[in-house]
């Protein structure tokens, strides 16, 4: 087997193991609160909330009815940490973060470079994730009048942790942590080659980005109209837009670039693996009696007043992002031999 493909397979499996551990820990925290209970912020004798350094809340678990009658501020309800009702989506975002951290940033497993610098970089990023999230949780806590603080801030805590992880990794990388070639940005450069360089025209890329943003927005609207998306359009659309940009970064700006070399095979693999992942999560949902939700055909969602397929749009877009990066790491974005007219770079 091709060494690159084998390495990517090892990477993807490692990512899934790490994600299972991360989500498992958060799921255990969720379950430890207990059904019908909530975590509230402890109040002192004067009725003020207790915070360490203004950032870390003092928490206490109590029955929801008691918390509401005493007017306590609810920090989290069961499910707010791991998002077990839409585990397919939270696991997708976690997988994207870990493939970026391990595969793109560290070069695991075949290409680990600048180990010391990059591991220090990841420690710095971890510190940033914790601080930034605590600051925002505190800010939203003060504005929260109904619902739980964690839900108002992040939807599910794991989403905010992993999204901060991806964003900070990209920004730190751009600022030069562990960078070998400063011309290559982190995410979209995986499939880059000299052939793409021949197209190095800012306006071509600009029109490409505008076109793909419109196209992916239309996809998001179709999912909304088909009642297969969450009502928060801003969240639902953003992941489709991000996937669009990552897609043209990997497979080329316009459809004429998508036909080159190994790319058609890569695009098919990306789609097939995405569908297989969604099917896998659906099977897991059936097997666990919906204690782990996939967001597709889920009665918990319809009980909550949403469509029972409300997670489908985000499942598609998040896993497409993941598999685009994975297929890129496996070398399926390679445009192959340059045509004569393209070798002017």
């Amino acid at each position, binding site marked *: 087997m091709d060494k690159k493909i084998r390495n990517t397979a090892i990477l993807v499996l490692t990512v899934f193991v790490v994600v299972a551990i991360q989500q498992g820990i958060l799921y255990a925290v969720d379950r430890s609160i207990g059904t019908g209970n909530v975590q509230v912020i402890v109040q002192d004798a004067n009725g003020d909330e207790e915070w360490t350094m203004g950032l870390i809340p003092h928490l206490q678990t109590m029955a929801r009815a008691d918390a509401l009658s005493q007017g306590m501020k609810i920090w989290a309800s069961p499910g707010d940490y791991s998002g077990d009702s839409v585990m397919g989506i939270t696991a997708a975002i976690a997988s994207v973060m870990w493939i970026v951290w391990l595969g793109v940033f560290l070069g695991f497993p075949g290409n680990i470079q600048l180990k010391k610098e990059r591991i220090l970089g990841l420690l710095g990023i971890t510190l940033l994730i914790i601080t930034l999230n605590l600051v925002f949780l505190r800010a939203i806590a003060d504005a929260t009048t109904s619902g739980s603080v964690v839900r108002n801030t992040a939807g599910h805590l794991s989403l905010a942790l992993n999204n901060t992880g991806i964003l900070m990794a990209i*920004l730190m990388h751009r600022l030069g942590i562990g960078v070998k070639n400063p011309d290559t940005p982190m995410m*979209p450069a995986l499939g880059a080659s000299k052939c793409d360089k021949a197209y*190095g025209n800012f306006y071509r890329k600009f029109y490409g980005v505008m076109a793909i943003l419109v196209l992916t927005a239309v996809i998001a609207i179709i999912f909304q109209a088909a009642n297969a998306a*969450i009502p928060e359009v801003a969240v639902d659309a*953003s992941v489709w837009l*991000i996937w669009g*940009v990552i897609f043209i*970064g990997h497979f080329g700006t316009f459809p004429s670039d998508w036909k080159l070399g190994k790319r058609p095979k890569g695009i098919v693999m990306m789609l097939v693996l995405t569908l297989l992942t969604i099917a896998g999560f659906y099977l897991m949902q059936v097997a666990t009696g919906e204690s782990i939700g996939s967001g597709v055909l889920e009665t918990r969602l319809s009980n909550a007043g949403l469509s029972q397929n409300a997670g489908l749009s985000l499942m598609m877009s998040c896993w497409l992002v993941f598999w685009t990066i994975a297929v890129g790491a496996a070398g399926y974005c390679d445009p192959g031999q340059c045509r004569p007219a393209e070798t002017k770079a």
Partner: protein
Amino acid sequence: MCDNLTDELEKRTTILEHKVRTLREILSVVTIVTFTVLLGIPIVSSVVGVGTYSEFFGAAWNTTLLYGLLAANTVGYLWSEL
């Protein structure tokens, strides 16, 4: 084109190239953060209950992060020399 440069000049050009590169990266990060903040303001304000249409936005911080990722990826793509 650069054959007739002296060693001294070549050295200085390399240093300059390096500095330009660093500045460019810093500028791109500033661009990303600016766009994130600009996109984040309506989202955060609508979630804390100030804006209209707040029901179409998700949780404040998370939605801001998502648009940060969009800005980072788009700027990264446009700013690359691919």
